[in-house]
């Protein structure tokens, strides 16, 4: 059952991303990208990453996608009256680049397939989740080992806020 669900979510993610890249209307593309994010959330759940699944659906599916939709509506880009696909020749070249890229990635990743199937740390991870809870297992290292990175990320978010306000503000005298 779990395996079937996993394949379902995997197929949904690939299908949704293909639709997203080929749809002309940006609003339709956003909806398909939300579908992709929900599918990957399902995959995270089945890979025992419950906290990541939760923040994936809140942050990506909720916050970021609403931001995209908001900008599309704000700039009134919802009408697909221009085709933004490049020429068929460019499409061929890009497709070839994409397939070559995929081949390279798959070749690199296949080496990890064996160790992934045996998942050496999987049992320990599940035991830690049982013991410390879904949030605790991520929060523990986040606030001890990675606390400096966490603070730097906070500064990064502050810089992003200031930069966004500066960029999006209408220039006034």
């Amino acid at each position: 059952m779990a395996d079937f669900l996993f394949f379902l979510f995997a197929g949904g993610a690939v299908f949704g991303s293909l639709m997203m890249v080929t749809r002309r209307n940006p609003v339709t593309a956003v909806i398909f990208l939300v579908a992709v994010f929900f599918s990957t959330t399902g995959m995270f759940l089945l890979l025992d990453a419950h906290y990541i699944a939760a923040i994936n659906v809140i942050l990506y599916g909720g916050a970021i996608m609403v931001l995209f939709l908001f900008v599309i509506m704000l700039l009134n880009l919802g009408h697909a009256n221009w085709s933004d696909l490049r020429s068929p020749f460019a499409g061929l070249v890009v497709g070839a680049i994409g397939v070559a890229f995929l081949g390279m990635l798959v070749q690199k990743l296949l080496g990890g397939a064996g160790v992934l199937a045996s998942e050496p740390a999987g049992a320990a991870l599940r035991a830690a989740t049982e013991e410390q809870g879904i949030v605790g297992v991520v929060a523990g290292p986040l606030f001890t080992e990675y606390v400096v990175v966490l603070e730097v990320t906070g500064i990064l978010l502050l810089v992003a806020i200031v930069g966004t306000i500066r960029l999006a503000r209408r220039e006034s005298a």
Partner: protein
Amino acid sequence: MTADTLSSLGSPGAVALMVSALLFSIGVIGVLLRRNAIIVFMCIELMLNAVNITLVAFSRVHGIDGQILVVFVMAVAAAEAAVGLAIIISVFRHYEVVDLDRFRVLKW
């Protein structure tokens, strides 16, 4: 490729890696193929998400650190989305389009 590797291809972790590679490649194709700045930007988000799948899959091999990294990737993605969309709004105000082929100068 050994028979051992082949037989392990159906496991969820290996499938997750394949899906991640596919999503990343589709994202690359989208970035190169589309001219609508917002859709190019969405393809970049798709690529970030594909990397997150890889990190989560490998967190079952190397421990929780992969999931910690995903948290940081998401924070950076959120900051990047906010700043990038602000840049798009700022450029749209000047050119009235979001066609990437029309943006030829760095100053406005």
